[in-house]
């Protein structure tokens, strides 16, 4: 039985249909033993006729049966899609690499079409020689490859005041994870020369995009020289337009807004510019009305991607794979615990691969479902010993007005028919 998830209404319709036919979702699998399977005993058209030739799709897209695995938008969040955000379908993905075509987008003035031939990157300010690079120049510097997650600081931001959006895509989908190819920012800064900057300890780089929003952020020099990249490839191919083609900045472990797309300028300065995106936005207001600024690093966080509201259990009781993603801006994930009872007891999940610094880590809990309701939670730990907090713990320190940096433990209420719902528990 093929079921494509297309929003809650069709899922509800599906559930209703199942209930009418067999009582519960679990009923769907009980029928399997009755008689021989015609998919096996009868010759199928795909086993007799011919498929598409090699050039049918010169650049392939996912098969039509996967057309529900797409980015989705929450329209009421913003005034206009030009300055807006959508969400990666993390509930339907596995492994750790996010395909570019469904990796979330966030634009401030829309995604622009900028040709490589028209691309220029300037380095100015406190450098020995202000320089201009073309795209071809960038390709002649020694290259590096690294995989990093990019998380918007507002990911899960709608959940501060309570459970709100019903799906991992919407609660946690402002994230993607790609393998980047590019040049280190250090290489370019050293090419321009930093002697003119003097003591680098209190220096900054201000980075700015070529689009109309001219998004700019100030980054401390030690981070700029540490691990930032000027990237021009992701997952082996050119960046997509919506992710900053032809060149974007990569700021590992730090909030996505700093990863300036279509980066056109790097200025070495002796102070933070205090641009709009580092003062009026991306600052976190505490209960007493004061606000934290320069909250760059993304705290350790995790979420169960399946089962989840958009990925209900359809097979009934028995073997069940609980899976999800974990990440930390402070380094590698070392452990993920999963609770089925809303945090009373925890068991340690299996990491698909050892955690890599500032990259998504996939975890699995291979378990047996007894068909009873579950309050599914996951809790990440990173190499600094940080443990992902509960929403209550976060609210005690930050109140409910932070908007950004909500890394709380998420709860999915899986009920006996396999459906899951975003809830908040005591």
């Amino acid at each position, binding site marked *: 039985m093929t079921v494509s998830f297309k*929003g809650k209404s069709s899922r509800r319709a599906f559930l209703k249909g199942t209930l009418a036919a067999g009582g519960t979702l679990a009923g769907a699998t009980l029928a399997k033993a009755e008689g021989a399977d015609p998919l096996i005993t009868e010759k199928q058209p795909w086993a007799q006729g011919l498929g598409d030739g090699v050039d049918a799709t010169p650049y392939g897209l996912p098969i039509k049966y996967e057309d529900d695995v797409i980015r989705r938008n929450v329209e*009421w*969040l913003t005034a*206009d899609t*030009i300055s807006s955000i959508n969400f990666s379908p993390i509930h339907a993905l596995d492994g750790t690499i996010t395909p570019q075509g469904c990796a979330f987008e966030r634009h401030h*003035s829309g995604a622009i079409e900028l040709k490589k031939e028209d691309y220029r990157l*300037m380095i*100015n300010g406190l450098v020995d020689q*202000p320089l*201009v*690079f073309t795209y071809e120049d960038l390709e*002649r510097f020694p290259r*590096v490859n690294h995989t990093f997650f990019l998380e918007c600081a507002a990911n899960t*931001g*709608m959940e501060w005041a309570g*459970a709100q959006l*019903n*799906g991992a895509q*919407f609660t946690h989908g402002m994230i993607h994870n790609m393998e980047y190819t590019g040049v280190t920012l250090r290489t370019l800064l050293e090419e321009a020369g930093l002697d003119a900057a003097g003591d680098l300890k209190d220096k900054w780089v201000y980075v*700015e995009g070529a689009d*109309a*929003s*001219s998004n700019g952020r100030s980054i401390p020099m030690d981070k700029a020289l*540490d*691990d930032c990249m000027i990237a021009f490839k992701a997952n082996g191919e050119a960046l997509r337009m919506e992710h900053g083609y032809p060149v974007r900045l990569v700021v*590992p472990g730090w909030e996505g807004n700093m990863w300036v797309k279509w980066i056109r300028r790097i200025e070495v300065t002796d*102070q933070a*510019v*205090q*641009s*709009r995106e580092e*003062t*009026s936005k991306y600052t976190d207001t505490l209960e007493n009305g*004061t*606000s*934290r*600024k*320069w909250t*760059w*690093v993304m*705290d350790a966080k995790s979420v169960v991607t399946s089962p989840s*509201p958009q990925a209900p259990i359809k097979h009934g009781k028995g073997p069940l794979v609980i899976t999800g993603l974990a990440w930390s801006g*402070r*380094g590698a994930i070392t452990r993920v*615990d999963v609770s089925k009872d809303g*945090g*009373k*007891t*925890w068991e340690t999940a299996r990491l698909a691969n050892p955690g890599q*610094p500032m990259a998504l880590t996939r975890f699995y809990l291979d378990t047996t479902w007894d068909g009873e309701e579950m*309050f599914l939670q996951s809790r990440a*730990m990173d190499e600094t010993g*940080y*443990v992902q*907090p509960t929403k209550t*713990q976060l609210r005690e320190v930050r109140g409910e007005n932070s908007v950004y940096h909500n890394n709380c433990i998420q709860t999915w209420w899986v009920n006996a028919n396999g459906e899951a719902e975003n*809830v*908040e*528990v*005591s």
Partner: protein
Amino acid sequence: MSKYRNLIIGTAMTAISAAPAFAERFGLGRAALPEEVAAWNVDVSPDGTGLPEGSGSVEDGEMLFSESCAVCHGEFAEGVDNWPKLAGGQGTLDRKDPLKTVGSYWPYLSTAWDYVHRSMPFGNAQSLSADETYAIVAYILYSNDLVDDDFVLSKENFLEVEMPNADGFIIDDREEAEKSFWGEPCMTDCKSEVKITMRAAVLDVTPDEEGAEEASMDEGTTETPAAEEAKAEPAAAPAEEAVAALDADLVATGEKVFKKCKACHQVGDGAKNKTGPILNGIYNSAVASVDGFKYSKTFKSMAEEGMVWDDANLAGFLAKPRKFAKGTKMSFAGLKKDKDIAAITEYLKSVSQ
């Protein structure tokens, strides 16, 4: 910084150790010409670094704002729909759903100047001259009650403007304030009871394929969902007798003046309460008597006193709204000309018949 910070750097350095080691320069790229640097290097910092020569008045700013900004931000910087509000909100930062505007939140004036100049207007960025930018920023300050209506902002007096929330920020203190998040977590008997305290399905704001549901929540422009509140009873029934003859020309003029009000107030068939209440029937009606609109405390107490929107009260309120009704939510600065007030009153009479 802290031990964790050092740890990150340590980790990261290991991570990129696969990078080729080199110290020499590659001789790639070319020198940036001074005019090229000048064309792109236009960011402005809090100490005024980057500010060009120039100046602009509140008066000019009001006109420019109306032309270039009001379509999204409202005539009085009060914001249209989900677009950002630029004025108001002072004193709300420690409340539920704080209103963050240039006046209530932004710590540096340079940020406003830089952003207006470099990133606005939306769809026509980098089209404003330095003088125009000074004027628009002056108007934004005025709409936040931070300067008077005769104020002129310039490079010279730029740093003298005091931003109310300048001291409202602290540098990221998570590693201190949230120290308790580091440690060994509980594995068994971590709590005795688990109860559902909130469900997303009850709120029902998740989009489905039919499109997004109606809701009005946004990080920056949150409107409190209309909570039913006790409304002041109309103190007096509108006078039905003696409908005075209207001056048609004056009504027409008033309709033009009303354009300034339209961003927030609707009239006519199918009018709805927006940022401000419907104004059908407002003339000679009791203050704060429009159904379903959440009035300020000020308006509620005016209603309790039995105030009616007669000529005198309308004239007083429209001339200086915030002086006449201290605490009103209406962010309109007021109509300067008596003849505009007379015209709009006539127009409101016409929609009240």
